[in-house]
């Protein structure tokens, strides 16, 4: 086992220790690949590889965000006529109908959460790349929030699935639109992006 050269037992070099995301054990940061001393999982790979993976997933997600908003997420078929709703269209319709809280929830979950995730991850990648001076604690908190809010964006996709089952009459039908697949894929890739981010990139 690796031993640190630290002689005074009361001072611990925080920078050289990392948390295992699987078993929460404290591990020495070897600056490259780390296999956790407790769960023996490969918990950190090369920082550069993880940097590029995060970036690649992020770009994929950002590209998918366009069809997710341009294509209808939900189509209403009523007496032979089709009415297509994009995410923004759906929010506006809800707002006009007076369902303000639901309109706000969807606006937050489907529009703001993905944008915030893109911004937060890009910010973390940029600060790590250019060694910008910024609070480590704040950056860790930012990343924690990014991970925590990631799944909220699925709300609209789930709602479409629920409505497609319930509104399934001969006179009126709700069917999912192409936007639903793009949206689900976008959420999937933003989650992959956050999961492949190496928190040691913050420590620099």
């Amino acid at each position, binding site marked *: 086992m690796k*031993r640190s050269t630290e002689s005074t037992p009361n001072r611990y070099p*925080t920078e050289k220790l*990392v948390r295992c995301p699987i078993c929460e054990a*404290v591990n020495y940061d070897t600056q490259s690949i780390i296999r956790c001393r407790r769960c023996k999982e490969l918990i950190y790979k090369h920082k550069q590889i993880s940097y590029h993976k995060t970036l690649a997933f992020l770009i994929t997600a950002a590209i998918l965000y366009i069809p997710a908003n341009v294509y209808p997420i939900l189509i209403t078929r009523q007496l032979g006529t089709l009415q297509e709703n994009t995410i923004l269209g759906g929010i506006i319709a809800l707002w006009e109908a007076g369902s303000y809280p639901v309109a706000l929830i969807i606006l937050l979950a489907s529009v703001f959460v993905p944008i915030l995730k893109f911004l937060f991850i890009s910010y973390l990648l940029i600060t790590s790349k250019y060694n910008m001076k910024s609070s480590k604690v704040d950056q*860790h908190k930012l990343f924690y929030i990014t991970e925590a809010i990631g799944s909220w964006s699925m709300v609209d996709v*789930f709602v479409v699935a629920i409505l497609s089952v319930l509104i399934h009459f001969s006179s009126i039908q709700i069917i*999912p639109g192409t936007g639903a697949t793009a949206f689900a894929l976008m959420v999937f890739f933003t989650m992959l992006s956050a999961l492949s981010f190496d928190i040691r990139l913050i420590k620099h």
Partner: protein
Amino acid sequence: MPSHELDNFIICKKCHTLHKKVPLAHDTKAVCRYCDTVIYRNHRDLFNTTLALAITALILLIVSFSFTILTINIKGVNQSLNFASMFIVMFEHHYYFVGIMLGFLVMLFPLIILSSTILLLILMKYRKYPYLVKRLLILIAKLIPWSMIDIFFISILVAMVKLFDFTQIDVDVGFISFIAVLLLDFMIIKRISFNELWINYEEIYRINA
């Protein structure tokens, strides 16, 4: 500092500040100096209570999957929602990716997490199969970010509000049991600490070996 001394430390999951662990009295918790996040707890009888909660949650989850969640009525025609119907409708409309995602995120993963937790706690209780216990611990940690039953519940509520003006909505057994699953799940996640489980794992199986 030798490696095993690292066990005396814990890093806050939110702000990544290093803390030295101190012994806790029963039913108390330690919070992070900087961000007030709970970093570890000391629960009396962690195993038996968590096991009971997890078994109840699993039964109720299966109930939620098997029974109707909502029923609506438009002009005398009823239409019901259950978990399987959502999956089927997505496939009928050829939305395979969304269908598969739904199946995994709101059905399969929560089911695997709960049943693995139960199996793990039972095996640890009887001090059996250390390798399997270890794989289960790792599996659960990896699946937790991909379980979306809480988001799914919010989606049900949003869908209900959207339908409220047009139709009468009746909540069914599946809906009630699903709320119970969420509450139990919340209690389990609040109680269970991976750090604690791993420390127990090491203690239990080192004695046997």
